[in-house]
């Protein structure tokens, strides 16, 4: 600012502005509220895992909404979009105005942003428990909500932020603002590409991508969404609020620059490490691992930069709860960013993947890093926003200690649970048989899950303490907030840049190119770029888009990456309807559909999954977790329709020790056959071919349903259920789908010629007759 050069007329024209702190107050309040809601739902789902029979106490349609699989996406989305999202916005609105020495460009856009975002959260909170979902982790919300997110995020938030940068009164863009720019740009790109869908109605759509491609797209999104929504903006927050709270500048501004660019360059590549040993091509997996490991250094550079910012101020930490929260938050950033790269190493991932280890890792980051950085920021903001003293520093201290104990009580048992699962799943007897069944491993970890219920409750109690403290602070606010008005000269649009450093090679007998390169190496160009937010934004966008294209394009364009299997055919209309139910119920939250090429996995679940098997899966349903067994070969392992029927009716009776809730509502509800045609048309649009007239989809589905039902009745099942014929039960479609999953691979090639919808019954029989017997059958 001191470098501003003003003309005489400019210096006369004074501008007036005030900081818009009202919008920060709104976002802080929303953060606390959604923090309580999100963590409370977390406790609820943790209770549902240890007491799945809770849903039995309710009418089946109500109980359906109380299943872990439907509520887990609500918990994750509430934690990410509602809690972390509102915290980010509070941080951005407060710090951007101060760092730019100006008010937000549009207060109206700020209000539209706030209320639009809250409306999105509310709609998501209503629709997700109803089973309205896209079936992709952290991207469950259906397309109308996705569109609303795009509008609110980009037009209301992004435009307002960028215009504020353009109208700022501080020449240099402080490093926090770089992190915010990267957040806005990258989240927009991730959100748009991963949510490209084919809608068949307001509440249903299908991913444009399938199988391996959809998986790579999803984890490119999933990993980077965590990076650019849960990490990058929080680092921006750290670089602003930590120096403020410690009252000293960041330890190394140079390190913060390297930290920023390293993360932008590296993060975007690391997504495929979420898919180690799956049907993803090896080269992509290795690429993800290498960049995953590389993330360690810049991440720790940032952590060390944060911790060392407190040099000479550690005495303040003993008395200031804000700094306590920040120190522990940054420490958890260090823990999580050491563990993340470690988990991206294939041999470690082989043990950790699908287990609770991932859950412990995610929660050490979410509760420790995101939670504590947010709490620290809020406690620092409360007296400034409400222009009074914090109601109780003591209570904030207690919140800190209770929260810290809660996190440790949460993650330590869940780490133990994850490692226990991983080791039990791979244990073999001397004769080569499996040592334990899947249910054995499940029973072993349930005590750890109980500990989590207590730990989660403790963390929620801490959030309640914050809410109470904030409420009491708000109540002691002045009757009218003092809003300082600043009268300042207009910021000069022109700027006398220091002269570009001349090359030291001038006059030396070298090529002109060498002299130019020498001048370029003085890096004065970057100092100019730092002041140009649009160009800076474009640079980030190019880095992200270029890396994404190089990683994603080969999977989409090289045929050899996904070898097709001649016997893999499109799903029948009834199976498509069943698959929709599978997605709506959120089965992927507990069951994977991806058997890794490992001895123990093959023994436990069957032949490992091939890339060509999921080419008709829109969206892919590989999952990331095994609370229940893998289902990639369920059609091979369990063909009995009656077994499935009874299992959905009383899971724990059929599989003693199972934590699956009952799905009686699927037995009681009637299947809407007329809706199936829309579904089949969508499948055809996305690449499936059908030999019959699509108008006959309902009839084709009915015929298959009659076959499935006849088998169930023959085996001793009911003819009628809840006042309608068994064949009209919704669950019949789901059973048909499960009987199909994983069977195509074993069909003889010559019998695969007819379109599946023509002879689904013949296909089922073939699968049963031709499948190689499993070495070991597992308890379901």
């Amino acid at each position, binding site marked *: 600012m001191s470098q501003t050069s003003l003309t005489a007329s400019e210096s006369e024209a004074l501008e007036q502005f005030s900081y818009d702190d009202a919008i920060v107050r709104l976002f802080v309040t929303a953060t606390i509220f959604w923090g309580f809601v999100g963590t409370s739902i977390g406790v609820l789902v943790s209770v549902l895992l240890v007491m799945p029979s809770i849903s039995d106490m309710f009418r089946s349609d109500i109980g359906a909404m109380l299943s872990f699989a439907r509520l887990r996406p609500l918990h994750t989305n509430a934690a990410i979009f509602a809690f972390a999202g509102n915290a980010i916005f509070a941080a951005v609105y407060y*710090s951007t105005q101060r760092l730019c*020495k100006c008010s937000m460009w549009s207060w109206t856009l700020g209000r539209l942003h706030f209320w639009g975002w809250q409306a999105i959260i509310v709609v998501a909170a209503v629709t997700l428990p109803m089973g309205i979902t896209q079936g992709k982790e952290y991207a469950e919300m259906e397309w109308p909500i996705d569109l609303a997110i795009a509008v609110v995020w980009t037009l209301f938030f992004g435009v307002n932020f960028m215009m504020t940068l353009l109208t700022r009164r501080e020449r240099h863009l402080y490093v926090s603002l770089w992190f915010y720019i990267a957040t806005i740009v990258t989240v927009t790109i991730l959100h748009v590409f991963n949510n490209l869908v084919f809608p068949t109605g307001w509440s249903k759509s299908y991913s444009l991508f399938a199988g391996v491609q959809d998986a790579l797209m999803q984890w490119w999104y999933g990993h980077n969404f965590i990076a650019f929504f849960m990490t990058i903006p929080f680092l921006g927050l750290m670089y602003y609020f930590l120096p*403020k709270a410690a009252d000293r*500048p960041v330890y190394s*501004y140079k390190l913060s*620059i390297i930290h920023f660019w390293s993360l932008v360059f590296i993060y975007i590549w690391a997504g495929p490490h979420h898919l180690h040993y799956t049907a993803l091509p090896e080269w992509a997996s290795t690429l993800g691992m290498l960049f995953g490991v590389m993330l360690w250094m810049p991440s720790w550079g940032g952590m060390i930069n944060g911790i060392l910012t407190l040099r000479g101020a550690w005495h303040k930490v003993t008395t200031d709860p804000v700094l306590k929260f920040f120190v522990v938050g940054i420490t958890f950033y260090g823990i999580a960013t050491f563990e993340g790269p470690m988990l991206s190493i294939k041999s470690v991932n082989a043990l950790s993947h699908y287990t609770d280890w991932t859950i412990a890792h995610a929660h050490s980051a979410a509760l420790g890093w995101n939670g504590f950085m947010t709490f620290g920021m809020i406690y620092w903001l409360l007296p400034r926003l409400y222009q009074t003293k914090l109601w109780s520093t003591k209570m904030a201290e207690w919140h800190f200690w209770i929260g810290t104990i809660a996190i440790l009580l949460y993650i330590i048992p869940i780490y133990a649970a994850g490692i226990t699962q991983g080791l039990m799943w791979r244990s073999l007897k001397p004769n080569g048989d499996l040592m334990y069944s899947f249910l054995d491993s499940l029973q072993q970890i349930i005590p750890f899950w109980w500990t989590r219920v207590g730990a989660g409750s403790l963390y929620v109690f801490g959030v309640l303490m914050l809410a109470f403290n904030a409420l009491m602070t708000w109540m002691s606010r002045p009757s009218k907030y003092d809003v*300082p008005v*600043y009268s300042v000269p207009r910021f000069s649009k022109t700027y006398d840049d220091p002269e570009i450093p001349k090359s030291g090679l001038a006059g030396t007998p070298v090529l002109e190119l060498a002299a130019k390169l020498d001048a370029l190496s003085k*890096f004065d160009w970057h100092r100019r770029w730092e002041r140009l937010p649009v160009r800076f934004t474009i640079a980030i966008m190019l880095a992200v888009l270029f890396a994404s294209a190089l990683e994603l394009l080969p999977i989409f364009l090289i045929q050899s990456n996904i070898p097709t299997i001649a016997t893999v055919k499109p799903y029948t209309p009834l199976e498509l309807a069943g698959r929709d139910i599978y997605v709506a119920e959120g089965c992927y939250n507990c069951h994977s559909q991806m058997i890794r090429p490992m001895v123990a996995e093959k023994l436990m679940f069957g032949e490992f999954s091939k890339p060509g098997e999921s080419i008709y899966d829109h969206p892919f349903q590989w999952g990331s977790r095994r609370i229940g067994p893998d289902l990639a070969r369920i059609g091979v392992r369990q063909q009995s329709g009656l077994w499935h029927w009874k299992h959905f009716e009383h899971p724990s009776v059929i599989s003693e020790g199972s934590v699956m809730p009952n799905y009686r509502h699927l037995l009681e509800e009637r299947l809407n056959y007329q809706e199936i045609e829309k579904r089949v048309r969508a499948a055809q649009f996305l690449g499936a071919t059908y030999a019959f007239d699509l108008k006959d989809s309902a009839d084709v589905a009915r015929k298959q349903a009659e076959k499935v039902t006849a088998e169930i009745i023959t085996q001793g099942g009911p003819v009628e259920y809840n006042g309608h014929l068994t064949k009209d039960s919704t669950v019949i479609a789901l059973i048909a789908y499960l009987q199909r999953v994983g069977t195509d691979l074993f069909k003889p090639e010559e019998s695969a010629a007819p379109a599946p919808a023509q002879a689904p019954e013949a296909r089922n029989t073939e699968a049963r007759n031709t499948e190689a017997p499993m070495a070991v059958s597992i308890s379901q």
Partner: protein
Amino acid sequence: MLKDVVSWIDYSFFDEIALIIFAVCFLAIVAWALSLRKETTHKYGSIPLNEDVVDPKPSQSNQSTNSGRNPR
């Protein structure tokens, strides 16, 4: 035509290209960051601590307008 071009391209070297681009960019950024003068980085790093607005005028509430009025 486009299909021919697309099928002709060998995408398998994309990861090597990516690695080279990353390395070049990363080294350039590191070199630039290290080339910054200490006084420059100190000035930039202190921006959050300096809330003074250029030429502040008395506020409507007739109080000091320096944002330093807020408790730190």
